[in-house]
């Protein structure tokens, strides 16, 4: 069953900023007058562990806070993607942080219906033979697209390690098409208001990260893999 509402499931390790990213995305949609619902998956862990967030954005209020099938699965770690496998269906687009997660191996079984678009192939070439990244979990469900974005690496090299989630947020926002860039900026600024007051550079840093992610998302939408699946 396809609902007009876009359902986004995000996952990462505790501290990677998944909840902030999801919350900001929902707030941006609310600011645009859309119906948005955000709920964290919370357990008894005080820190660490897998952190999941669920966002629904559409014209109608969401029917229930959680859902069975996600239109977008955003994973910042291997363990969190494992927890989100149950949300995959044929229309799911997966976006993952390829600085943490090794790209999936294409087996015979999957050729023809899955496509992988690694936005920065050069980056991996420089890594040498030892790939210390987490293994991409085995996915049996056919999905629409899988996109890689080495957000943590980009953040580390170009900006600051702490904004990798904002890069992912930018790419997610563009890919899902649920909000305008300006709205995300506004929501981000609201969220960081007190911190920006102390350090005005934080605003520029976060906006740069957001734009980098947004542009990456733009490239994914224009990729042959995306148009082939749509």
């Amino acid at each position, binding site marked *: *069953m396809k609902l007009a509402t876009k359902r986004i499931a995000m996952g990462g390790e505790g501290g990677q900023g998944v909840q902030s990213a999801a919350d900001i995305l929902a707030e941006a949609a609310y600011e645009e007058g859309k119906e948005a619902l955000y709920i964290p998956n*919370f357990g008894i862990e005080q820190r660490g562990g897998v952190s999941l967030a669920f966002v629904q954005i559409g014209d109608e209020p*969401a*029917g*229930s806070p959680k859902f069975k099938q996600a239109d977008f699965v955003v994973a910042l770690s291997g363990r969190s993607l494992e927890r989100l496998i149950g949300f995959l269906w044929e229309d799911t687009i997966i976006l993952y942080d390829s600085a943490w997660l090794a790209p999936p191996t294409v087996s015979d079984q999957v050729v023809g219906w899955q496509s992988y678009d690694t936005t920065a192939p050069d980056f991996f070439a420089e890594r040498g033979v030892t790939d210390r990244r987490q293994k991409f979990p085995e996915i049996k469900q056919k999905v629409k697209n899988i996109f890689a974005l080495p957000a943590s690496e980009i953040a580390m090299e170009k900006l600051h390690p702490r904004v990798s989630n904002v890069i992912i947020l930018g790419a997610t926002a563009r890919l899902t098409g649920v909000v305008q860039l300006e709205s995300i900026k506004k929501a981000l600024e609201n969220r960081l208001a007190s911190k920006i007051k102390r350090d005005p550079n934080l605003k520029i840093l976060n906006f740069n990260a957001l734009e980098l992610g947004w542009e990456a998302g733009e490239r994914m939408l224009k990729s042959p893999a995306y148009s082939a699946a749509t």
Partner: protein
Amino acid sequence: MISKLETKKDEYPRPVEGERQAFMYGNEVVVWAALAAGAECLYGYPITPQNEVMHYWSRLAPDYGGKFLQTEDELSAGFATLGGIMAGARCFSATAGPGTILFQEPLAMAEMMRIPIVLVVQQRGGPSTATVIYSQQEVFLTIFGGNGEGLRIVYSPGSHQEMYDYTLKAFDVAWKHRFPTLVLGDGYQAKMRERVLLYDPAARGMEIEPTVPFVGLPGVPGVDREPAHWRNAFSVEEELYEELEPIINDYYRIAPSLMEKEEGYLDGAELILTGHGIVGRAVRTAVKELREEGFPVGFFRPLTLRPFPGKDLIRILDDCPRLLVVESAQGQLAKLIRISIGGELDHRVQMYPYFRPGLGISAEELVEEAKAILNGKREQKQEKEFSMSML
């Protein structure tokens, strides 16, 4: 004279002026509703998933003259709340799970002594510590959890808007009728963030019953005024019965005016879906989807679980005696329904259970379940036996 808690409300701004759109967490909504209703003090003890009610209250309330005390446990929180209320202050509390169990003693005392109290319950998984996440397993606890007759009013909202509306209303109803009034939320509603319209009840012409001190009244008892007897202990059976009978009569006299529900898509319905709280919302969404696909289904969503709007359900089931009962508990709502429809109708109604204790329920899965029932894929006899034995 023991005056109201030493708050100076008049010197503080109104918490909500006119109307204001907001994008909020459920626990935050509870706090804004309590502030808008003029609540003055929260006594509480932390338990997930209601902790943020205390966090937001202790952060926001001082700006509006509100006070906060963290007690040593929920028993203490409940009795301290009752004490504050007897002194004439508008006090309230919030809890969940095992905390709701400890609250039963103060709630039962409130029933006996006709003390108005508002308690917000954000259900978590049970029994025992179970999960800190979500369930609908505290229905019977909120309604019949005390040693007594369940002389309480229980609202079950399904959105942040209803959470705001009914928390506001609870403060009016509790003080107007002097029965414990509970707002039964859940971990999902507590932790999710969505749109809500906050409003000043006064700006909408909504009056909230004022508070009055029950103790420390002026004058000499027995000379200037009737002495007040606030008793929860009696030495003779007849004495208790004499005291209790008018309370019970009062409750059932006002009950019909308190019942609330939402229903829809009943025309030509061949299956009625029912659920309360956040599940009622999934039920409504599923029915809308199913109708758009041409399936003849309707929904009934009780907004008060106590008193239960049974008469409305009986009217609906008279036309369509097939009912899919959906809940994140093992038949607590189903039991309430069977009690309220009772007798002959109970035998005629085909009840299909969809019980998921402690587990969230989405509109998507209800669409599938309703289709399966309508397509005859749920063996009726088996389902009937199942539902009977599982209750």
